[in-house]
């Protein structure tokens, strides 16, 4: 178990481990005591690690063939699709991989919201996660610009123009971001550089995220503190490894279906038209995973306030451990929070839907109501709920609900000898 001092068996292993405790680290990772009642919603951490590595590996390969130049980027992507061996496969994995990454991260975030994983003592894990999510959005946005299609160009124009809402220095900042007076070659080359850099920043933060996780250990569906190692835990290897592996394979089947059979369905057709600064597409829409925030941005009539609302919608999440005043973690024991949780899920889905629609008439009205509710959930409902809500009694240990309350001491003893 991780609390035990690990000593390698071989002499060389001991010599090496005294100087660089890699073997101790490996031993910690395999023995890491994990609550045994984790359900499949907990497998998305591993899935996200897989997504990140897939994006980095395919991205490196694409970068060997891609040319970051306004006159050649579109052509070089077609070169990858047609002439590079399995270039189409690598590009489709990378492009759909971004969507899969966001699908997984949204499930991961909403799992955390449901089971209260952001609460003490896991606030740092949560905040690191929010920073990773922000960097993911930046990386995805810049990545979408690189093929230099119509949506790339106009998406970049719209998003970078948001900074012009900042009073006094806005125009200057936008020109500085562009490296000129419009989105052009300097913008493309710097976006490429940053798109290459950010995944490695994310990788570093993921290491911190996992490190911070390994201090208090995993939360669990019951949400109570557990003793570790104990009858409530299993060692990470092989129990969690095989379970995560199974879930990952299921995820990969969905992933593969997109890559091989509908590789362009999550993208926009206009991005197969080369960027043309003189022709504006009929509708400029961001990728699906940014739509809820796009809806929030457009629901505010004032540009500056819209940008502030959009940013606050993300940053408010970082304050969540303190906004949620309830001491109970898991929504399983919070009947009222559970209902508000599902309303929030519906609210975000509605925001995503209206984000894809033109900002007018009924859609705009719905977007405004949904935006308002989004903030009310975090700023009003959660703080009050902690004081008002009558929660259900918590079990003493996670084996109790599993065992139906009967102690079964002998079984527990046997299990411990196994561990």
């Amino acid at each position, binding site marked *: 178990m991780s609390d035990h001092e690990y000593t390698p068996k071989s002499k060389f292993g001991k010599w090496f481990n005294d100087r660089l405790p890699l073997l101790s680290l490996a031993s910690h990772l395999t023995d890491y005591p994990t609550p045994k009642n984790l359900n499949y919603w907990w497998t998305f951490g591993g899935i996200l690690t897989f997504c990140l590595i897939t994006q980095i590996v395919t991205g490196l390969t694409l970068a060997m063939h891609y040319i970051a130049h306004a006159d050649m980027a579109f052509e070089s992507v077609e070169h990858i699709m047609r002439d590079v061996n399995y270039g189409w496969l690598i590009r489709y994995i990378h492009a759909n991989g971004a969507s899969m990454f966001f699908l997984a991260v949204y499930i991961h975030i909403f799992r955390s919201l449901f089971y209260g994983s952001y609460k003490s003592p896991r606030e740092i894990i949560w905040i690191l996660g929010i920073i990773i999510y922000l960097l993911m959005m930046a990386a995805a946005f810049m990545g979408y610009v690189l093929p230099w299609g119509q949506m790339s160009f106009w998406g970049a124009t719209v998003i970078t123009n948001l900074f012009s809402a900042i009073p006094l220095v806005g125009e200057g900042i936008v020109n500085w971001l562009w490296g000129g007076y419009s989105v052009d070659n300097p913008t493309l080359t710097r976006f490429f550089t940053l798109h290459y850099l950010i995944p490695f920043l994310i990788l570093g933060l993921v290491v911190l995220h996992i490190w911070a996780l390994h201090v208090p250990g995993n939360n669990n569906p019951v949400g109570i503190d557990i003793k570790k190692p104990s009858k409530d835990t299993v060692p990470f290897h092989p129990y969690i490894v095989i379970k995560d592996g199974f879930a990952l394979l299921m995820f990969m089947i969905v992933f593969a279906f997109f890559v091989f059979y509908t590789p362009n369905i999550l993208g926009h*057709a206009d991005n197969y038209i080369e960027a043309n600064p003189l022709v504006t597409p009929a509708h400029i829409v961001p990728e699906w995973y940014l739509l809820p925030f796009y809806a929030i941005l457009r629901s505010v009539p004032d540009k500056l306030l819209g940008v502030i609302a959009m940013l606050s919608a993300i940053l408010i999440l970082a304050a969540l451990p303190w906004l949620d005043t309830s001491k109970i973690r898991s929504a399983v024991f919070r009947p009222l929070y559970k209902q508000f949780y599902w309303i929030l899920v519906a609210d975000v889905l509605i925001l995503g839907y209206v984000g894809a629609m033109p900002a007018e008439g009924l859609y705009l009205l719905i977007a405004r109501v949904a935006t308002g509710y989004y903030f009310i959930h975090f700023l009003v409902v959660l703080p009050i709920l902690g004081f008002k809500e009558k929660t259900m009694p918590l079990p003493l240990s996670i084996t109790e609900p599993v065992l139906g309350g009967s102690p079964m001491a002998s079984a527990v003893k046997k299990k411990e000898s196994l561990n």
Partner: protein
Amino acid sequence: MNNIFKIIYLIIFIITGTIQVNSAEKIDYLKTDWSFKGLFGKFDRASLQRGYQVYKEVCASCHSMKYVSFRNLSEPGGPEFTEEQVKAIAASYEVNDGPNSEGEMFLRPAKLSDKFVMPYENVKAAQAANGGAYPPDMSVLAKARSGGVDYIYSLLLGYEDAPSDVKLDDGVYYNKFMYGNKIKMAEPITDDLIEYGDGTPATKEQMAKDVTTFLMWAAEPHLESRHKMGFKAILYLIILTVLVYFSMKKIWSRIESEV
């Protein structure tokens, strides 16, 4: 397992939702059977060859296809002309090459490695010759329009006399599938416009279908190998998933059996 089904439902829900949002502007396109759709979809070789003929004899006088090379025409998964046929096709075009050792540019017959020769020198020349409208490059056209092949097929067959309340300028035509219904391309295909080499009757519908199939191939030349590999990959993943599932049950039984 209960949870895993919930997760799968959620994923399906999000995906179908996204797809519906993406295709929000539903238009009833003309329907035809595409051989390349579906899990085992393949191109109809004869249709691709006819489609190339339509492209070459009709479309190519205005529309470029600058990312496709002559050699692609003989590659597996495409029209699969013989190499001799493609060499002959290429040789019928001239490309500008050079400079030679005297520093002069010169014209030479195209080779297999050359890209399709463009009908105009540049976009401006194309616009000047077409009343200000640029005939879009056709290399990825089938992926560059929402509705894809169904849209292109419908557009080719969607020319009609304008309703009485629609005023058309000179050189503008009415098409019920065009965005805004006004198009600067005259009706490109009519019955028996060309004579197919293989004797297939050259009806409007036949030509539209053939050339659209050809455009799909041009946009996605590796479609067939993608479908083949996808089937193998997913089958492999399913088998592996089942094996891992039983391994997982076995490993977890060490704990659960005692509980």
